[in-house]
């Protein structure tokens, strides 16, 4: 499990345009609103729509965050796009105690076998939820719901204000998608 008393480092894998940076930002804002220290930032560079991108979040409930470098040994990785699994090594540097949060319509067991992911897996079909509730396959806010359910890094309600601020009249739909993903999340741990 993720120890929320320690510094938690989260790496987001998405494609340019899927909103990985926005979801990282929303989670950091929720954590800050809860009174924690937090930091969110993109992988720096001229990113292109559709190309694999990274975003990062650090959350610390006890100590200020005194590090400014990309996260290389994350506690959690979040994968917004299932198409990234065959082409990006999403578990690179992931701590042994870490967790993979992935958007997929497959069962966790299948993901584990297909991609050799032996870490705790949290899965949901976020693309389906996003298409149904948002009308577009943009899964960033949906996947925030999965992250929150699987890790408890922030309270789900702490995301409401950041989502409303960010999305205005579109906030409600995004909140619904996030809540539904939260409900539908399946977490599988493997006994070694």
């Amino acid at each position, binding site marked *: 499990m993720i120890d929320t008393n320690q510094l938690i480092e989260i790496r987001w894998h998405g494609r340019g345009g899927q909103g990985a940076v926005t979801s990282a930002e929303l989670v950091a*804002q929720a954590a*800050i*609103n809860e009174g924690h220290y937090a*930091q*969110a*930032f993109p992988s*720096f560079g001229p990113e292109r729509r559709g190309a694999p991108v990274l975003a990062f979040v650090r959350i610390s409930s006890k100590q200020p965050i005194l590090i400014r*470098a*990309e996260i*290389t040994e994350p506690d959690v990785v979040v994968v917004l796009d299932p198409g990234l699994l065959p082409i990006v090594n999403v578990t690179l540097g992931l701590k042994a105690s870490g967790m993979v949060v992935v958007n997929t319509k497959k069962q966790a067991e299948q993901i584990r076998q297909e991609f050799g992911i032996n870490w705790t897996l949290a899965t949901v079909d976020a693309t389906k939820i996003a298409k149904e509730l948002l009308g577009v396959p943009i899964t960033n806010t949906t996947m925030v719901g999965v992250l929150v359910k699987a890790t408890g890094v922030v309270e789900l309600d702490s995301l409401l204000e950041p989502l409303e601020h960010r999305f205005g009249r579109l906030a409600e739909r995004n909140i619904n998608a996030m809540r539904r993903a939260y409900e539908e999340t399946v977490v599988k741990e493997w006994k070694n």
Partner: protein
Amino acid sequence: MVKKVGIEVSVAVADAAKLANVDVIAAYPITPQTHIVEHLAQIVADGELDAAYIPVESEHSVMSACCGASATGARTFTATAGQGLELMHEVMYVASAMQLPIVMAVANRALSAPLSVWGDHSDAMAVRDTGWIQIFVENGQEAVDNVLCAFRIAEDQRVLLPVMIHLDGFYLSHVIEPVGFPEQSEVDQFIPPYQYPLPLNPDKPVTMGAFAPPFIYSEAKKVQDVNLRASKEVIMECWKEFGNRFKRHYSPVESYRSEGTKVLLLTMGSFGETAMTAIDKMRGEGKKVGLLKLRLWRPFPFAEIRQAVKGAEVLIVLDRSLSYGGPGGPVCSEIRSALYQQEKKPQVISFIGGLGGRDITPAGFEEIITRGIEISQTGSDQEFELFGVRE
């Protein structure tokens, strides 16, 4: 002080300019400064700030427009980075010599070629002789605080000089982190409306930046140098007043766990926090090492640097820019120069790193310190070491 909010540092810097109630913003977007001026454009378009926003066709025009605006007595703000700062270069001398109190945020960026949008201090160092006050910040809160201080310093009648606030591109500009903002009324008291002494005014013509033949040019330059040096007292006074009001304290050279240590590392800007993490780890292992952070780059704080290194035997300086074919890092070079006449001084070891956005992790800082100590014992035939470079 109100509760801290999670905000992108660029947006926070724009909000600070808004709190300072600027009259004129002239800007041209460039990565990684873009979000600052984009947000200001939005604020002005939404009617939240009564200011003239002048979108121009280049940074050369930005600085020219800023000079004109500032000369009329308007409170003037802009932001830039990297190549943009370089394109302003010649006009920046005009701004300082004509005593125009412009405030500019610089999202420090590497210089081409090869093209790099990422952060280092090459742009900041290239403009060190333009006569501006240059202040480096380490995090978003410091960026907001020092943008506010910059207006008060720049507009002080004893100073009347332009000020750059240097925040590292991406490392600060693109990070969402907790930042607290003072109330508008508190800012209004801290930066009161000001009166430019001799503004451009068609009804009352004045001559500004006149022609200077050889018989007067040297005197003009002497005055400029004396004035920039003297601004240090006002800068420190401003930080003291800021500390009294807002309980956050700034000084030209800041130290972290440096008391009684023989080995010191010196950094500038956003790398200070990562270096602190490395220092904590090494102190935990019983290694007596400390950190200095150089906040004020111009005017250079000679007395404070000399004081801060007293008792140290090794001073390791990390630069984030390179003076090709010269002494290496400009910061190290100036510190060596500042200490040269001192009877007792530490060995000064020069490292360059973090060029073009390459990270230095806490482990990297440990490595720099360990290697620096080694060089102090064995000596080196190199002017500097480029940390982590593949040869």
